């Protein structure tokens, strides 16, 4: 955690400052750095890093007699299993059904991201080209659905889809997922498109590029980083979603999120739930790494 000090460092190598004053100043700086950086570090390590380690540990243990986790050490007198085991991993990797459900969840998340992109991109493009006053208003209207609770937005679709017998179907799940995640795609796209220099479009037009050519050769390539940022912002939460499939999905629409939730809150098999969660974490990290590599090429 050694942070290179930048705050007011310039006076350090200024010869005319007296040695004594220089030391005192350095001490104050050291304390300031500590005051500002220790509390957040402490809180996040204690309530983020530690829980993550506990989750990894939990995936290596047996389930307790009545839920929870079996004890780590073999204490005399208490029967039942204890200690670490790879049983959960053998079970998860042994049976392809779990990789299958992960792929199915990834597939649903992918379709959601694609639909969000298809709907969000023209909207973001339109907003980015409106005059300033209108722009803020139109963006506000995109964020507003976030104003009402995430469950209510799902419940709205229960009411709408119910009578048409579309409820409890993959279609309902996709509609729900797109509905919940659409604003998350519009915002990064809009901020990216808004930054485009209009002069570039004039230059392209001046050099003989027609409307479609301008979009394909200029606007689209430059908005790629926005597209990847938006897609990651939709795909990753969608992958771990369980409320939408549970409320809108049918028997065949279970996602990995539902399975994890069920392990913890219904079938009380915490170790197996933790293992599934790790499987999901690994997938998310892979996706994040993949999309970070693209958004890294920040062009404009």
């Amino acid at each position: 955690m050694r942070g290179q000090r930048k705050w007011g460092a310039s006076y350090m190598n200024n010869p005319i400052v007296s040695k004594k004053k220089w030391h005192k100043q350095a001490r104050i700086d050291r304390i300031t750095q500590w005051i500002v950086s220790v509390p957040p570090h402490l809180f996040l390590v204690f309530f983020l890093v530690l829980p993550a380690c506990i989750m990894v540990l939990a995936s290596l243990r047996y389930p307790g007699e009545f839920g929870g986790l079996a004890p780590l050490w073999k204490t005399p007198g208490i029967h039942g299993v204890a200690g670490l085991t790879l049983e959960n991993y053998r079970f998860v990797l042994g049976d392809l059904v779990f990789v299958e459900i992960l792929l199915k969840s990834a597939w649903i998340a992918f379709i959601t991201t694609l639909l969000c992109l298809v709907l969000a991109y023209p909207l973001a493009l339109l907003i980015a080209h409106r005059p300033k006053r209108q722009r803020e208003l139109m963006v506000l209207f995109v964020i507003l659905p976030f104003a009402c609770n995430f469950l209510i937005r799902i419940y709205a679709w229960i009411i709408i889809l119910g009578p048409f017998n579309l409820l409890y179907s993959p279609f309902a799940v996709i509609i729900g997922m797109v509905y919940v995640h659409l604003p998350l795609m519009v915002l990064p796209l809009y901020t990216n498109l808004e930054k485009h220099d209009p002069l570039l479009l004039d230059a392209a037009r001046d050099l003989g590029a027609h409307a479609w050519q301008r979009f394909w050769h200029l606007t689209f390539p430059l908005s790629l980083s926005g597209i990847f940022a938006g897609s990651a912002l939709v795909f990753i939460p969608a992958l771990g979603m369980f409320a939408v499939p549970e409320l809108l999905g049918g028997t065949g629409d279970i996602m990995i999120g539902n399975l994890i939730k069920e392990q913890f809150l219904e079938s009380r098999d915490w170790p197996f739930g933790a293992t599934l969660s790790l499987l999901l974490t690994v997938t998310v990290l892979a996706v994040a790494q993949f999309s970070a590599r693209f958004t890294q090429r920040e062009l404009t």
Partner: protein
Amino acid sequence: MISLTLRFIFFLLMLAYGCETAFAKDTLYLYNWNNYIADETIQRFEVRCACRIKQSYYSDNEEMLAKVEAGAVGYDILVPTGNTVETLIRQAALKPLDKTKLPHLANMKPAFLNAWYDPGNVYSVPYAYSITLIGYNINKLRALDLPTDSWALIFEPKYLQKLKGRVTVLNSQKELMSAAMKYLGYSIQDRDMRKWEQAKALILRAKPYWAAFSNNTYIKDLAIGNIWVAHGYSNDMFRAREDARSAGRPFSISYFTPKEGAVLAVDNMVLHRSGQQTALAHRFIDFMLEGENSASLSNMIGAGNPNQDAMSLIQPEIARDPNIFPTAELLKNLEMIRDFEPRERRILGRMWIEIKVR
């Protein structure tokens, strides 16, 4: 700018604090099945004992066990089914009952006392019972002329084709697999895993036709007409029938106990060890043992009634309903769910995961 934010935070704290203090009076925490006690009964008790009842709901024993395990503090009374009482006793999660405070225990029908899961009723007192059966939309099924007497309705593809996307089943491993075992003619106490494998296969064959796994939304869906057949508890089906009638829906709901037999669930009131209001809890249990209050369970919610004293107060057509008060010979093939050994439970658990995932 800063003052604006501080004022805003202060206002929020005051508002929140206001809501919180209103309920400082002594409060009894009841963790019960949803739709298993009438609001009117709750209000009568609150008036009689000048106290407040704070209710939380669960829709499956497993969910209750998991939640209690996760945040066990504060619940005075739970209403687990027989097998779950046995689990809670083994977990030493319950406080013994003080029978002296339960004068109305005498009203209990002898058949329901001294059950296998709590000999001598040390920890539990029967509250009500329900049968896990099939509710259906009379008009739709008559139009499709489907049988209304057997589990085949929700397990046989030849019937299910006509009901595609219109059937829900319970999202409970024990209930659903037990129903399948019953349909195959096996006892649900059977420990032979091969039989449970057959039950799993049966379920997997029927699953594509089902609309969803649901422990509670089926009450509303039946009443609205989104679904036409539901696997669920008798008192829930009673509620669905009442809702459909009161909402003036163009159809009516009925329910039947399949001839192959079904699961009987006797739910019992128990005291959780972390509850603070032990005295108040005893008064509530005794209150529910009184004939009149127990009768409200049947009259208003359609639950089976183990209370002898209440029988005279129950409305005749509910008393005659075999799905609420099963006749002696029907009782023969009703079985209660029992917990198996941890090893077997894990195998069944894994089967359940396959059912959900395949």
